[in-house]
C-alpha cells in the first residue's frame, strides 16, 4: 500500500509546464530521493504537495486521504513537513524559538487563556520546551540553543531547519536539497540523521538531492525527473545506470 501517491499532477505557469503528468508512489518507511537537473520541477513537486501552488490536474493522496485541495496551513496537520531549498528560517529570533514554532500545532489554543497566562498554558509551554529539547539533543544543537539564527553558520542553520520540521512530529518529511552547501563531514552526519529519522522516529523521508553519494548511501529508491516529467524510477543503482538519466543529468 503506497503511503504517498502523486497521480497525474500537472503544474503550469502560463505556457511553462513545471510538472507534466507526473505519477509516482512512496511506500511507508522508505527514503525516497528525487534527482534531476535544475528546472526539472523537483521543488515544484514539493510546492504542489505542500499547497504553495495549486496543481492544474491530478491528485495527491497521503495515507489514504486526498490532500490536493487542503488549505495551505493545514498540510502539517496531516503529518507532512518540509524544509526549503533556500533556508526559510525565522531570522530575528533564536534557535529555540524557531524550534518552538515548530510545535505551533500542538499548542493549547484560546486567546483568553494566553492573555491571562493560565497554568494550563504554562504547562503546555513547558511540554513544548521538553519536546524541543529532545530534538536539540538528537541534532546536537545544544551549543546554539539561545543564539540568534542570523549569527549562525550555514551548516548549522540547515540543521535548525531540519529540527524545526521534526518538531511538527511529521509522518512524511520532505527535504529540499538538505546537503547543499554542507561540507563532507556535515553531509555524512546528515546521512546518519536521515537514517535515524527513518528508523527511530518512523518518518518517511522524500528528499530532493544533487549529492549522488548521499543519495546512493541513504536512499532506498530514486526517481529522476527531467523537464517536469518522470524519467526513471527504481533503486539508486538502477537509476544511475539508466541511459536516459545519464544523458539528461549525470553525464557520460
Amino acid at each position, binding site marked *: 500500500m503506497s503511503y504517498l501517491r502523486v497521480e497525474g499532477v500537472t503544474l503550469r505557469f502560463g505556457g511553462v509546464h513545471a510538472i507534466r503528468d507526473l505519477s509516482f508512489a512512496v511506500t511507508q518507511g522508505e527514503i525516497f530521493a528525487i534527482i534531476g537537473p535544475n528546472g526539472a520541477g523537483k521543488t515544484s513537486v514539493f*510546492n504542489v504537495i505542500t499547497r*504553495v501552488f495549486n496543481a492544474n490536474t491530478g491528485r495527491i493522496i497521503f495515507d489514504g486521504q486526498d490532500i490536493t485541495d487542503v488549505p495551505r496551513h493545514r498540510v502539517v496537520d496531516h503529518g507532512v513537513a518540509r524544509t*526549503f*531549498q*533556500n533556508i*526559510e528560517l525565522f531570522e530575528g529570533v533564536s534557535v529555540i524559538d524557531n524550534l518552538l514554532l515548530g510545535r505551533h500545532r500542538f499548542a493549547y489554543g484560546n486567546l483568553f487563556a494566553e492573555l491571562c497566562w493560565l497554568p494550563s498554558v504554562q504547562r503546555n509551554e513547558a511540554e513544548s520546551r521538553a519536546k524541543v529539547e529532545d530534538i536539540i539533543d538528537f541534532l546536537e544543537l545544544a551549543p546554539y540553543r539561545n543564539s540568534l539564527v542570523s549569527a549562525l553558520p550555514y551548516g548549522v542553520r540547515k540543521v535548525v531547519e531540519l529540527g524545526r520540521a521534526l518538531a511538527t512530529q511529521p509522518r512524511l518529511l520532505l527535504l529540499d536539497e538538505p546537503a547543499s552547501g554542507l561540507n563532507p563531514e556535515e553531509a555524512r552526519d546528515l546521512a546518519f540523521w536521515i537514517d535515524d529519522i527513518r528508523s527511530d522516529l518512523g518518518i518517511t523521508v522524500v528528499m530532493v538531492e544533487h549529492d549522488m553519494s548521499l543519495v546512493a548511501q541513504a536512499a532506498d529508491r530514486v526517481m529522476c525527473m527531467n523537464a517536469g516529467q518522470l524519467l526513471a524510477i527504481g533503486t539508486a543503482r538502477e537509476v544511475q545506470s539508466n541511459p536516459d538519466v545519464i544523458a539528461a543529468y549525470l553525464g557520460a
Partner: protein
Amino acid sequence: MDPQLVPIVQLALNGIGIGSIYALVALGIVLTYKATEVLNFAYGDILMLSAFVGWGLIVVAGAPFWLAVILTIAIVAVLGYLLERHVMRVIVGQPQFAGVMLTIAIAFMLRGGVSMAFGPTSRSYPTPWSGQITHLGPIVIADINLVIVAAALLVTATLFLFLRHTQLGVAIQAASQNQLAAYLCGIRVKRLNSLVWGLTAAIAALSGLLLAPVALVDISLWFVVLKGLAALVLGGFGSIPGAIIGGLLIGLIEQFAGVYLPDGFKEMSAQLVLISVLIFWPRGLLGEAHGRRV
C-alpha cells in the same frame, strides 16, 4: 463642437495638464524605486523645496525666469545627490522598512526646515506664460498647461531613451536587481545610486517649478507625493509607462470628481484610488506581479 461636450473636454484638458505633473512625480518616484528599491517619500518635499528656491531666485533675487529654472534644477539636483551620498547610503543593506523610515525622516526635515525658513504664507512668482491663454475653438487652455504637458513629454522621452539605450541606464537596472553582482561586474553602484537621486531630484525640481504657478508656492505642495504614489499604483508598480498613464488618469479623475461627485471627494480622490486599487487590483494596469519564490 457640440456645446454639451465643451465642459467635458475642458475638464479633460485640465485633467491632462495637472495629470502630467502627477505623471512626472510618479516617474521620479518609480525611477528611484527601480534603482535603489527605496520608495522616496521625500519626493514631494524636494518638489516643494524647489518651488521655494525658484520663488527665491525669481522674486527675491530678481533673476530672469530661464536662468532661475536652470539654477533651481541644478541646486536641487546637487541636493538630491548629496542626500543619497551622505544620508541614504548609510542604510545600504538594511531591510526596505529602514529606507521608508529614512525618507519619511528626510521629508519631515525638509518640511520643517522650509516651514521655519519661509513661514506659512503662500507665495507666487511670474512665468513667461502667466495670464496667457490659448483658444481652441470654444475651449480655453492656460498656456502654462501646454508647457506642462510639453515638458512632461520631453522628460519622459529622454528618460526612456536613457534607460533603454545607454550603458548607464542599463547599469542602473542591473544594480537594482542584485547589488553585489553589479559590483562584481564593475558597476560603481554607489555612485550610480547618487546619480539617480540627483536625476530624480532634477525632475522634481522641474515639476515643482511648473506646478507652483498653478498651485501656489506653499508647504502643502508636498502632498503631490501621494498623488504620485496613487498614480504609480494605478499604473502598475514598477512600470514606467504605467507611471505616466497613472498620473494622467489621476489628474482626470480628480477633475471629474470635483465636478460630478459630492463635495470633498476631489481632495480625497487620490487616497481613495490608492486604497481601492491596492486592495482590489494590486497589479494595477501595467504592473509586474510580485511574490517570493521558495
